[in-house]
């Protein structure tokens, strides 16, 4: 992750090219992921206390402005997912099945299928707990 830093570009390097911007947005997604992890960690912490404390916190967490932040964070989280999965074929060692190298589009599409499956399982489980 230690990219050589070209100081001549200045701090606005991300505005120079579309590819720079995509990398910048990918790195920026980490800020939103971190904020959401902190918010969720606090939610679980409040869940261990009394109902009043929990509701006070969810009033803040579910304020319309915060929901707008969650929508933005969701977009960044999906961008993280897309960029992370697209990089996997070049980050992983070559995967061979019966001596033939697995094409990268298969690796990428398998990951997306896995992600959709995991999301459906978790989403259904949460819905099931809410419904019962």
């Amino acid at each position, binding site marked *: 992750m230690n990219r050589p830093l070209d100081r001549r570009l200045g701090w606005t390097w991300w505005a120079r090219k579309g590819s720079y911007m995509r990398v910048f947005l990918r790195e920026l997604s980490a800020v939103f992921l971190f904020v959401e992890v902190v918010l969720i960690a606090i939610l679980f912490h409040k869940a261990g206390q009394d109902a009043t404390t929990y509701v006070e916190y969810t009033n803040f*967490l*579910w304020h319309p402005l915060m929901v707008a932040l969650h929508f933005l964070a969701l977009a960044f*989280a999906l961008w993280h997912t897309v960029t992370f999965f697209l990089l996997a074929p070049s980050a992983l060692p070559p995967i061979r099945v019966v001596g033939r190298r697995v094409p990268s589009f298969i690796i990428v599409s398998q990951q997306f299928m896995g992600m959709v499956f995991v999301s459906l399982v978790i989403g259904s489980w*949460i819905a099931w707990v809410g419904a019962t």
Partner: protein
Amino acid sequence: MTGRSSEAIFWSLFAAGGVLAALLMPITILSIGILGPLQWQWFANATSFTGIQDLLDFPLVRVITAIALTLISIHAVHRIRHLIVDMHVPLPPSLVAFIAYAAAFGVAGLIAVSLVLI
């Protein structure tokens, strides 16, 4: 730094957190941050005070959630650390790294206290 660097350890945690974030964060944000407050009945129930107790009722769920959130926060601070340096913020990179990993350590502590040590 000469010879071996601690970077490899952080990088493997970073990669694991990246996979978990890619798989888990969209549905988590959608469920807790969007569908719950928008009053989708089942998600609103599941994220209420009693609903969240039911979700976290299983020790295995709490442990897995704690590990996943910890690794995702390590992944995020690792990227934020490099982003801060790449944005030419005039701070020593070693100080940035220290603050970043300290923040992740703090979050991991809060998660451990909330989910595992209760």
